[in-house]
């Protein structure tokens, strides 16, 4: 077994490099089923960079192989970074094909073996890729039955499948196996027509909880991440970094570094690096380099950023509207105008960006921690001047991504240094490089004007979001007059907006938008003197959302009360990636220090068909736990382009002692298509805690993170 391909079964296959056309020839005998993601709109609506429609391959973007050994493999450009698709996709495949799950291999994120895929983000693997995978698997099963019918001389209608075998229902001794059917053959099918997939009542593997299939490698230390790839002659590179974004290298003295035994200093324009066979020695040598930088003056910092953003905001784009704001305002007995802020937040995956690049002649092989191997391939090809098909990107296990590993600076650096040095090179960022070059969740501002009538109905809603992105911006309440406007409608800022790079961060845009919307709804509920659950129900017509909220209230044991009730209970709703979420939290606030202790978080979600209930539950728990961070502590400190949080000493992320009691419930909705699971439950975390704080102490927090000093100040203001 190729040690880098945990899910590949065939060593030959994993080792042989192939280009996109070539792999059709070199994948050997077996039955192949090529398919593409059915709903192409998923690919063009969001994600890193912009991909033109014509770049999306129209023939296929994944395939199945039924091998002579009876194993079934799915080749896909999607990657596993902890979200669990290595398990849930295999469940779909095994169930639809009637093979044992242990006989399923997932070959993921290898650009030579797998057809083009845009990347793994946006909770798309299950909701967009999953249905296509299921139809392909069902079609493969149909093809196998047809072949068996011919071979066994039994009509198709009498044949059934189980455990990788086809048999005659009327005489089960008449049987053959997928392995036997595939033997010595090369059959290719393209999935074109719609295929009937199993009904939920027929599921044997889907919708049943299954523990992670990659757990054994991960608990034994055998799982390899990009930094664990060691090649003969490989050198570790440590790169000279500027003190701030925008700083220019004026002068550099590498003399002392070059004297370190075994160290190679490389300078190519602004790129100054030390290479050594040991990463720590390279790092020590790098620290001997004396460099002078010209750092531009810091015009903005973590306090002044919001004014700056409002000043440079581009014109707005209306993303939703109805009715007439002015007439809504006229009907209002009270009008509320609020501004909500949130700081830059780091992705901070435990595995920093890492890449290994090996160049042989005109071909390069890359091992990278990436969410978008095909994007990385293109960048490397461009950097090296190679043809795209001469670059192979292999994605080993990825140690967390959350949107941050769709950027590939480290891959390009490794490629450049491999070319310059003539040796295979590994670039593994330190934690401070990871902070410095992160594509942060953008600092953002939301301004809302809204009103309620004397009868406690929301009369108008004027919602304006700056720089967060429009995902999650439109509300889902019954409001007759409303308008939602996005200024800079992506999480990537316009030129000059942010002092460093920003990008997609787990449920991009939606964390900011849900914090603002659900806080404002709560303020109106309090103004109307109505219980916040009741107030929401009064303004919801969507049956799905109502059911989610009602279930949450019931499971939590919610007792209606006007907020602030002093109990510290808060509620918030959200929709993300097609999934509906209701969260309820209980907090305790120390009035003296402003410290907030989250004691309990309950989340209910409707995500349509659930492929792996165990995996979905873990994702919800992960969302809740991670969400505590941006709600309570995570806010990047910086002065201009200088990032002053460079490790976990000052940038605090959630830890065991923060852990509330977490309860999760997934509603039964198996007849609806599957929706996203890796992101939704995080979007409500800001508001649910803010609302619970208000309920506890009557103080409203308008800025994330809700650090103790901020909470204390709000309490004192009254």
């Amino acid at each position: 077994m190729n040690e880098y391909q945990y899910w590949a079964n065939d060593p030959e296959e994993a080792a042989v490099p192939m280009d996109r056309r070539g792999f059709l020839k070199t994948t050997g005998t077996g039955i192949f089923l090529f398919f593409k993601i059915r709903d192409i709109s998923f690919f063009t609506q969001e994600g890193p960079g912009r991909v033109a429609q014509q770049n999306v391959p129209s023939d296929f973007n994944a395939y199945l192989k039924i091998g002579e050994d009876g194993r079934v493999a799915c080749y896909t450009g999607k990657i596993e970074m902890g979200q669990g698709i290595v398990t849930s996709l295999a469940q779909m495949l095994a169930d639809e094909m009637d093979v044992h799950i242990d006989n399923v291999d997932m070959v993921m994120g290898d650009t030579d073996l797998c057809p083009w895929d845009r990347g793994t983000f946006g909770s798309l693997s299950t909701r967009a890729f999953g249905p296509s995978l299921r139809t392909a698997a069902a079609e493969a099963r149909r093809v196998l039955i047809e072949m068996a019918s011919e071979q066994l001389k039994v009509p198709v209608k009498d044949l059934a499948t189980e455990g990788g075998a086809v048999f005659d229902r009327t005489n089960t001794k008449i049987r053959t196996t997928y392995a036997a059917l595939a033997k010595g053959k090369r059959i290719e099918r393209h999935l074109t027509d719609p295929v009937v997939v199993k009904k939920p009542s027929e599921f044997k593997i889907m919708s049943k909880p299954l523990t992670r299939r990659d757990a054994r490698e991960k608990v034994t230390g055998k799982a390899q991440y990009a930094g664990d790839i060691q090649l003969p002659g490989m050198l570790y590179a440590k790169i000279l970094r500027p003190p701030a974004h925008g700083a220019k290298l004026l002068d550099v003295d590498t003399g002392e570094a070059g004297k370190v035994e075994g160290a190679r200093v490389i300078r190519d324009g602004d790129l100054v690096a030390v290479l050594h066979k040991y990463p720590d020695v390279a790092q020590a040598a790098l620290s001997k380099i004396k460099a002078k930088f010209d750092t531009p003056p810091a015009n903005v910092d973590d306090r002044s950023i919001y004014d700056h953003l409002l000043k440079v905001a581009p014109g707005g784009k209306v993303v939703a509207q109805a009715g007439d704001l002015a007439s809504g305002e006229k009907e209002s007995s009270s009008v509320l105008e609020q501004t909500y802020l949130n700081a830059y937040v780091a992705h901070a995956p435990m595995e920093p960006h890492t890449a290994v690049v090996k160049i042989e002649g005109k071909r390069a092989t890359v091992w990278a921690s990436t969410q978008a191997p095909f994007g990385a391939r293109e960048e490397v090809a461009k950097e090296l001047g190679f043809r795209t098909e001469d670059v192979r990107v292999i994605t080993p296990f990825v140690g967390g991504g959350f949107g941050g590993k769709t950027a590939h600076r480290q891959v390009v650096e490794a490629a450049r240094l491999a070319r310059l040095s003539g040796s295979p090179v590994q670039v593994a960022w330190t934690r401070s490089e990871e902070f410095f070059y992160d594509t942060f969740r953008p600092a953002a501002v939301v301004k809302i004007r809204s009103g309620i009538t004397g009868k406690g109905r929301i009369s108008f809603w004027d919602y304006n979001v700056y720089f967060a992105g429009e995902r999650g911006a439109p509300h889902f309440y019954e409001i007759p007059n409303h308008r939602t406007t996005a200024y800079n409608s992506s999480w990537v800022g316009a030129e000059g907006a942010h002092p460093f790079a920003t990008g997609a961060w787990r449920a991009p845009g939606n964390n900011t938008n849900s914090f603002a919307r659900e806080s404002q709804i709560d303020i109106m509920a309090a103004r109307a003197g109505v219980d916040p659950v009741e107030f929401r129900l009064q303004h919801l017509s969507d049956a799905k959302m109502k059911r989610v909220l009602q279930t949450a209230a019931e499971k939590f044991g919610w007792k209606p009360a006007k907020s602030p009730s002093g109990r510290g209970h808060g509620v918030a709703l959200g929709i993300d990636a097609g999934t509906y979420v209701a969260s309820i939290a209980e907090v305790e606030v120390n009035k003296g220090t402003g410290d907030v202790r989250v004691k309990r978080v309950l989340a209910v979600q409707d995500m349509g068909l659930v492929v792996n209930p165990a995996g979905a539950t873990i994702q919800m728990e992960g969302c809740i736990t991670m969400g505590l961070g941006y709600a309570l502590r995570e806010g990047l400190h910086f002065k201009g382009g200088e990032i002053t949080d460079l490790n976990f000493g000052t940038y605090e992320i959630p830890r065991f002692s923060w852990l509330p009691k977490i309860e999760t419930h997934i509603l039964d909705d198996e007849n609806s298509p599957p929706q996203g699971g890796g992101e939704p439950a995080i979007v409500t975390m800001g508001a649910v805690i803010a609302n619970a704080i208000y309920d506890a102490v009557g103080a409203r927090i308008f800025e994330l993170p809700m650090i103790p000093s901020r909470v204390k100040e709000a309490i004192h203001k009254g």
Partner: protein
Amino acid sequence: MEETLRFKLNGKPVSLTVDGDRLLLWVLRTDLGLTGTKYGCGESFCGACTVIVNGEAVRSCQTPVKEARDKEVVTIEGLAAGNGLHPVQKAFMEHDALQCGYCTPGMIMNAYSFLRKNPAPSVAEIVEGMDDDLCRCGAHKRIILAIQAAAKEMHGGL
């Protein structure tokens, strides 16, 4: 300064000529090829680099290799005998106490050393014992369950 160091690594004697001031993490990962031990922060904040030296969990990113001289070092690769699994590893698998898995070796090594000292911990004690180990994926709830289960399974014996 290069020196020859001898110590026991995962039950086997090793002899190594290295600069004793180099950090154990990198010597394990590169010179000795044991990549199960991870780098997460390099400054003692995260615990991804945790290994056991003479029964104590240490952060290998802060430990000069010379401190291992004549001692017994155990890494994630050597926690279980042969191809088997240690009860802590098994509990992590059974409770899905991991997502991306990058923090997992460090979590398991720290949990192992913690359970040696406190074989029947309360949840509060587990939280305290694990609090300096970071997991960005948010597997915390499951890790606590796994440690409780492992404690039960081991009945106080390791």
